[in-house]
């Protein structure tokens, strides 16, 4: 289970400063912000732009280009379900439908109780043990609707 700090400009400036000196620093900076705050909020963009001496428009373009960066923090748990071809061949689409119905959320959504955020992912490299998922970064293979139900029930 992930826990994130509330947004704080001074803290954000310190996080950015830790990585701003790297060559091509933008992605490492954004990853670091997301690790601390659970997302890269709009308010972070001018701070990143100033630290890296690039325009705010450029930062906005980068944040919105990459699927990983979020605007709001996720729920208490993050479930990535694989939707790519290898998992499709062993029933991933039906499993994905089942999970969306069980959680009553669509892709990128968070359950009403804030417990789970559901994200699609296109390949986890677990293609011979599918359908596959990552739950809070922990890989799960050979998923069935019954098994995912048990796992979801255990989440607080």
């Amino acid at each position: 289970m992930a826990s994130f700090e509330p947004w704080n400009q001074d803290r954000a400036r310190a996080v950015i400063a830790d990585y701003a000196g790297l060559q091509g620093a933008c992605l490492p900076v954004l990853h670091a912000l997301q690790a601390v705050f659970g997302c890269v909020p709009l308010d972070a963009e001018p701070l990143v732009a100033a630290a890296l001496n690039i325009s705010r428009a450029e930062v906005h373009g980068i944040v919105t280009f990459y699927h990983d960066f979020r605007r709001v923090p996720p729920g208490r748990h993050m479930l990535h379900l694989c939707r790519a071809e290898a998992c499709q061949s062993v029933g991933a689409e039906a499993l994905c439908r089942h999970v969306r119905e069980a959680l009553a959320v669509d892709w990128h959504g968070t359950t009403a109780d804030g417990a789970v955020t559901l994200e699609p992912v296109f390949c986890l490299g677990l293609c011979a043990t599918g359908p596959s998922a990552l739950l809070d970064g922990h890989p799960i293979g050979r998923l069935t609707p019954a098994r995912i139900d048990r796992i979801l029930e255990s989440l607080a």
Partner: protein
Amino acid sequence: MTRVFVPRDAAALAVGADEVTAALEDHADIIRTGSRGLFWLEPMIEVETPEGRIAYGPVEATDIPALLADGLLDGTAQHLRLGPPNQIPFLARQTRLTFSRCGIVDPLSLDDYYATGGMDGLEKARAIGPAATVETVLASGLRGRGGAGFPTGVKWKTVAETAAPQKYIVCNADEGDSGTYADRMLLEGDPFSLIEGMAIAGLAVGASKGFVYTRSEYPHAIATFDKALSIARTAGILNAEFDIEQRAGAGAYVCGEETALLESLEGRRGQVRAKPPLPAHKGLFGQPTVINNMITLTTVPCILRDGAAAYQAIGMGRSRGTMPIQLAGNVRYGGLFEAGFGVTLGELVNDIGGGTLSGRPIRAVQVGGPLGAYFPPSMFDTPFDYEAFAARDGLIGHGGVVVFDDTVDMAQQARFAMEFCVAESCGKCTPCRIGSVRGVETVDKILAGQNVAANLELLRDLCHTLRAGSLCALGGFIPYPVLSAMNFFPEDFQRAHPVAAA
């Protein structure tokens, strides 16, 4: 205590390897390894006995008490016993060069690495010097394992001959193709081989800095490789002369395209660059750059160690050496099969893969990831070779082979290909950015039974536009799965009841 080897590969963790470890750790000395790549047998554990290792699998944590009581630790327990791992037919039929250590050694033990021939390739490169190192790679016939199949030695030679104050080695570990996991296995199972391969490349072309771009969907691989980097730095393998930094991607498939990857490494949106200039002339930060696939770089050490001739002797046609083929999806024996080029698709999926996991007939096999063609069983005589697949409008890509049984709807697979291209297009060129959206719409019309014949023709025309007019392989190759689905499985596009045109 008896030593027991338990994989820490993410695919083994996904099916309970940590739970098996917890059940065993009071009874044995546990060594965590990578995976041998026999995924239907994971978690597969190996017990060290005086006669060598004895494998058991697939082992669940709940099996451990009974196995221990029956003599697991001296290899006599019979339940789930697979015998010596190298005698398992799936492994015995392979030629493991790039994957020679994976699943056997502790991936973070330099002692294990040295004991299994590690750093011999780098020693050899130092002894023969940069020019002879480039010549060796050239003579080996090694071609880029990311899919394009460009001769590695030619790329290295170009960078070596380009004068610049700073040159870079970039490893493409943005393994986004579904059905592929070779990079992930090696990052988790033999990370020092990548460090050695990049150090050899650095020496050969005169580069002092390397970057590894690993996809963010591989958190375990990233963590293991970061540890390996720090161990190598402490041991002085990485130093002021040559150092490596790892960077994580951020979920963009297109960053597996080399110029988009360079843009991303430079801190920008992962948009494709027009070529020329080639990365070998103006690559990362405008400097001459060797950008190679991870499997290409990890194969270099054994080429240096064993000589170009030994590697060149394996394979067929212009495809020399071995290819780590990854059997995936609906396949009974899914796993990594490293073999010389030339094995046929039918041998791979039927003899080696054992047919489908579901037990139903195979209907289609997609080779080479989301941009690869779907091949029907009538084309299973195609040998695994860059040219043979290209001649049949397919590609081997990074070696992923995804098996589908007869329940697959190929019109839906064609739709998925276009939908994937919509989501992953970098947006730079029009055919890919807009054509993919029109592609989804057109498949939807066909599925709804609207003007089916005319829309099929339109879809085919759109595919030709994408193929000829896109800037990179994403838009250029997405027609392969779509056209192959239309050509080999036309009945799937005729299922809707026709409706009158609006």
